[in-house]
């Protein structure tokens, strides 16, 4: 069973979805739909009965909660069922004093030990009840900015291994244009696939590398409309690279 991303034509491109228990890098320029894909991915999981872990470095869990609620008014009911866990790596470092159920606060993005420990704890709790779950870490870029790519690489070695052991299908986001090519390659090395998004003049394009068998590995045009990513480019007929 493949793991549906919640973006219809992206799933078609992926021949059904992401391979289960894999790690995917979502690598995109800012403001062109990275968050939208991540949120739909989370929602599709919840709708399929798979719980979700959000690891947030750039916004508080409350902001995430609101955004998810806007996407689906039914979101709070999943939270009530205990299917959503947040690891908030943002609030404490900007001295926001927030509280909530199913949230673990991490001091700062520098404290990768605590992030790792919190992820393991959340995953363990889910494995007791669910066969598989989803994890979204948004974003690796922030972790890299506060230390360096090599340190984040070592962190990811541990975390990606844990995710696989615990049955998580995970998405890690990284912002295009923030990092040197070597840093990106280093991180990609630990992933099972990459979903890349770029802006080319007025066109926005998406492409898939790795991620098992796919229909096309070419750049595909897409449109970003309020909380929707719609793949408009043709790929049925395209050559499979």
């Amino acid at each position, binding site marked *: 069973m493949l793991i549906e991303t919640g973006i219809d034509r992206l799933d078609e491109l992926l021949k059904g979805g992401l391979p289960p228990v894999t790690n995917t890098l979502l690598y995109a320029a800012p403001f062109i739909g990275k968050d939208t894909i991540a949120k739909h991915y989370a929602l599709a999981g919840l709708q399929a009965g798979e719980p979700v872990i959000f690891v947030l470095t750039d916004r508080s869990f409350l902001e995430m909660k609101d955004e998810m609620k806007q996407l689906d008014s039914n979101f709070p009911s999943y939270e009530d069922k205990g299917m959503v866990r947040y690891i908030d790596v943002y609030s404490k470092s900007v001295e926001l004093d927030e509280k909530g159920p199913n949230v673990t606060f991490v001091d700062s993005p520098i404290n990768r*030990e605590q992030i790792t420990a919190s992820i393991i704890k959340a995953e363990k709790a889910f494995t007791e009840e669910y066969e598989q779950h989803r994890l979204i870490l948004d974003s690796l870029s922030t972790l890299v900015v506060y230390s*360096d790519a090599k*340190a984040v690489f070592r962190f990811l070695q541990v975390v990606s291994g844990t995710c696989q052991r615990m049955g998580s299908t995970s998405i890690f986001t990284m912002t295009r244009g923030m990092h040197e090519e070597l840093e990106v390659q280093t991180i990609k090395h630990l992933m099972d696939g990459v979903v890349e998004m770029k802006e080319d003049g007025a066109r926005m394009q998406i492409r898939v590398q790795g991620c098992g068998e796919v229909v096309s590995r070419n750049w595909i045009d897409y449109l970003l409309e309020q909380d929707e990513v719609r793949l408009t480019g043709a790929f049925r007929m395209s050559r499979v690279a």
Partner: protein
Amino acid sequence: MIETGIPRLDKYLGGGIPEQKSLLFSISPEVEESNVAIHVLQHNLKQGNDCIYIVSKSSPKQVRQSFTEFGWPLADYPGTLYMVDGYSRLIGAPSDQDYLIFEPHDILSYEDVIEELLLDTVPEGSLLAFDSLSNVMDLCGERDALKGVKRINGEIGERNSVAIYNFTAWPYKENIMYRIQRRFDGIVEVHSVTEGAFTGQAYRVKQTSWNGVTGTSVPFKVFRPGGIKLYIPKMLVVGPFKAGKTTFIKQLSERSTQVDRMGATIAVEHGTVDHKGYRAELFGIPGQERFAPLMDKMGATASCAILVIDASDPSFEKARAAVDYIRRAGIPFVVAANKRDMPSTVGDEEIRRMLDLHDVPIIDTVATSGRGVMETFEALVQRMEEVSDAD
């Protein structure tokens, strides 16, 4: 000698960390909670030692909060804590600390502050806690950071002080790990363990340049409040009908839950003991024979047992059956010879002979007054330590 205050660790280190020595806590990144430095610091502050704490992963404010969460508010100690803020400049936040690392990406910046503190401020024989080495290695470069550590340890030696380092054992390259092993006088490894009913951490002394005992793996858990405690997930309290188990558990535990009916215990009793660095979950097993299957089941996952017998009741038939159960489970145990306040009781030697106990410790107790109850607990953990050290 600087004690770590971590239960049993000082014993393995031969009393603590000798002056002029450095000790590395090498912590697996999968460990859920690893506030080793905080535990060691509070132990020393409590004893009136001055301590230097270099923090690089959290703000000094958050560190203070952590101390409070552990039940150790910093204001309460006779020793002074000199916190060195290696964090604020890293994230571009303002700092109100007296000791600030201006260049967190330069190991010399750490050395400058440490040197100033060691030479001008803290007395000889103080403790320096560096939290964390891995973080500073990531910031300053692995080789440069380790060269700096060598110089810091040199200063520590000259000032007859002690240094401990928190190190997260991310998958660094082998040559770096090799350097690390040579750079410290002692290494204690911490990793996560899942063993039967127990999930938590375990530490193990890997090496010492003095005569420490290496090799024994000691499971522990971190409690907030409470800190590092050796955790016994299942300690059985077994014994014949009306020998006094319920009272025994009541006395032994801070909080216990039991279901009493008609004076005889009919369900499994539970309690928790917090004593001398240990936290143990107590499970009382009722004496009636029909609970024998329960005993067999509980025994399979238990770590140890206390056998409570009625020393005023000379028929030891039921007690013998209980001894057999425990022996079958193959776990360490001690005997509480209870009701010692009764007019006529059987002597220890007689009990030993009747129950075929050989070298099992027997402790005289009066559960109703609490006499001998804590001693029984201490004798049992002592016995467990002997067993695990012999492995």
